[in-house]
C-alpha cells in the first residue's frame, strides 16, 4: 500500500511541475496532497491526515483554483521553459537528490520499536500548555500570522488603480 501511495505522490508531483496547463497542474497537486494524506493515515496519524485533507486539499487547492480562474483562460497553454534552463534545473535537482539520498542511506537511524499512538487530546493539551515543553507561544503567533495575512490579502487585492 505504501508503494502505491509513493508512486502516486511521485508521478503526480512530477506532472504538477511539468504540465503545460495551469488547471491540470493544480489537479495534479490535489492528487499529490490527497496521497500524502493517505500516507499519514497509513502511519496512524489520523488527526494530521484530516488536517492535511481539510486545509491543504480542501482550502489551498480551492484558493489556487480560484486564482487560476480569475487570471487565465482555462485552456491557455503556458510556454515551456527554454532547454538550457530545463537542463540546468534538472541537473541540479538530480545531483541534489542523489547527495541527499546517499546521506540518508549512510545514516544509521535508530528506529524505535514501541508503536504507541498519540491521541488528539494530547496534541490539544500540548498546544495550550504554557509550562515546560508547551507550544502556546507558537500557537498564538500562528493565530496572529493568520489574522495578519487575512488583512493583508484583503488590502492587497482591493487596491485601486488610476490608469
Amino acid at each position, binding site marked *: 500500500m*505504501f508503494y502505491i501511495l509513493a508512486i502516486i*505522490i511521485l508521478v503526480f*508531483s512530477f506532472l504538477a*511541475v*511539468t504540465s503545460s496547463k*495551469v488547471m491540470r*497542474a*493544480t489537479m495534479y497537486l490535489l492528487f*499529490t*496532497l490527497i496521497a*500524502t494524506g493517505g*500516507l499519514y493515515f*497509513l*502511519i*496512524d*496519524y489520523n*488527526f*494530521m491526515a484530516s488536517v*492535511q485533507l481539510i486545509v*491543504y486539499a480542501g482550502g*489551498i487547492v480551492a*484558493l489556487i483554483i480560484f*486564482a487560476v480562474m*480569475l*487570471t*487565465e483562460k482555462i485552456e491557455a497553454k*503556458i*510556454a515551456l*521553459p527554454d532547454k538550457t*534552463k530545463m537542463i*540546468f*534545473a*534538472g541537473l*541540479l*535537482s*538530480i545531483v*541534489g*537528490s542523489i547527495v*541527499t539520498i546517499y546521506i*540518508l542511506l549512510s545514516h544509521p*537511524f535508530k528506529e*524505535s520499536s514501541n*508503536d504507541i499512538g*498519540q491521541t488528539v487530546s*494530547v*496534541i490539544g493539551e*500540548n*498546544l495550550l500548555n504554557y509550562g515546560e515543553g508547551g507550544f502556546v507561544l*507558537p500557537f498564538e503567533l*500562528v493565530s496572529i*500570522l*493568520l489574522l495578519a*495575512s*487575512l488583512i*493583508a*490579502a484583503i488590502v*492587497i*487585492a482591493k*487596491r485601486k*488603480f488610476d490608469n
Partner: protein
Amino acid sequence: MIQGVGITHVLIVSTLMFFIGIYGFLTRKNLITILIAIELILNSVAINFIVINKYLFPEKINGQIFSLFIIAVAAAEVAIAIAVVIDFYRINKSIDVEHGETMKY
C-alpha cells in the same frame, strides 16, 4: 510505523518530492505554477517531520505540532500570494514573472 517499510523509504520519497518542487520552482515562469512548486516543497518537509516523529520518537508529538504549523504557514502564504497574483494580473495583464518590471528600477 508501516509494516515492512523502513524509514529510509519514506524519506527517499519525500526527498524526491522536494527536488521535484525545486525543479518546478526553477523552470516555471507562471506565478501560479511557481506557487504549486512551493506547495510541493512545503508538503515534503511536513512529511519529513511526521515520519521522523513516528519512526524515531513515537512517544513525543513535536513533529506533528511542527507540521501543523507548517500547514498553517502554508495557508497564510497562499492567501497572500494569491492576492499578489491577482494584483499582478491587474497591473500587467499576465502572470508570467518576466512581465513584472514595475519595481525593476
